[in-house]
């Protein structure tokens, strides 16, 4: 199951809560303000590294670019809209709000 997170982790608990519900191997995709979670060396980097042990993690490049986020946590893959579509084709989706 693909989990998408679209809210900043600084203002919304989606990121921290969803982490408890992930099954091993479930891909996680950060979009919109959700991408603030993957900025390198922020408060959530440690939690993100825990997730990266068992789950592939993606962030949508246009959303990163729009927010000037150039340095992202190692292991997080930056993808374009095409990659987003591929993930949605391959998985059921859980859109955390």
């Amino acid at each position, binding site marked *: *199951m693909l989990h998408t997170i679209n809210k900043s982790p600084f203002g919304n608990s989606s990121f921290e809560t969803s982490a*408890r*519900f992930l099954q091993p191997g*479930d891909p996680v995709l950060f979009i919109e303000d959700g991408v603030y979670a993957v900025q390198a060396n922020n408060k959530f980097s440690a939690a993100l590294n825990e997730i990266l042990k068992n789950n592939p993690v993606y962030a949508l490049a246009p959303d990163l670019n729009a927010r000037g986020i150039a340095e992202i946590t190692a292991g997080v893959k930056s993808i374009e809209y095409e990659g987003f579509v591929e993930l949605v084709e391959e998985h*059921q989706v859980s859109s955390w709000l």
Partner: protein
Amino acid sequence: MEEIESESCDDEIVKKIMHVMRAAPHGTIYTYEGLEMILIMAAYDQDISVAFIDDGVYALKKGQNTEGIEMKGFAKTFGALDGYDVEKLYVDQISLEERGLTEDDLVVDVEILSSAEIGKLMTEQDVVVHH
């Protein structure tokens, strides 16, 4: 074309649909609208479950009296969902404990599960709707 149409009419398509309640009941409209959606889907005989996570567990808190804020109280409606064959109500144990609540504080019988157990149920759904 005709064949396809007749098939879709004859065979009931039942989907597994999980609703995730994650907001407190009165501060936003999300939980109430989610409840309305559940009732509509239940009318179509779908396999519905509801997971209460984070502040979503407050929707089930006993003793809510909304008279003073002039809002409709709908905790009792969650208690009546079994009348619509919606019987799978799951509550995230951590969310309950974090808020100092126990099963006795809730208006309806629920199944209290770990986050991982609810996460596994999510993967078994055709659709997961977050409210």
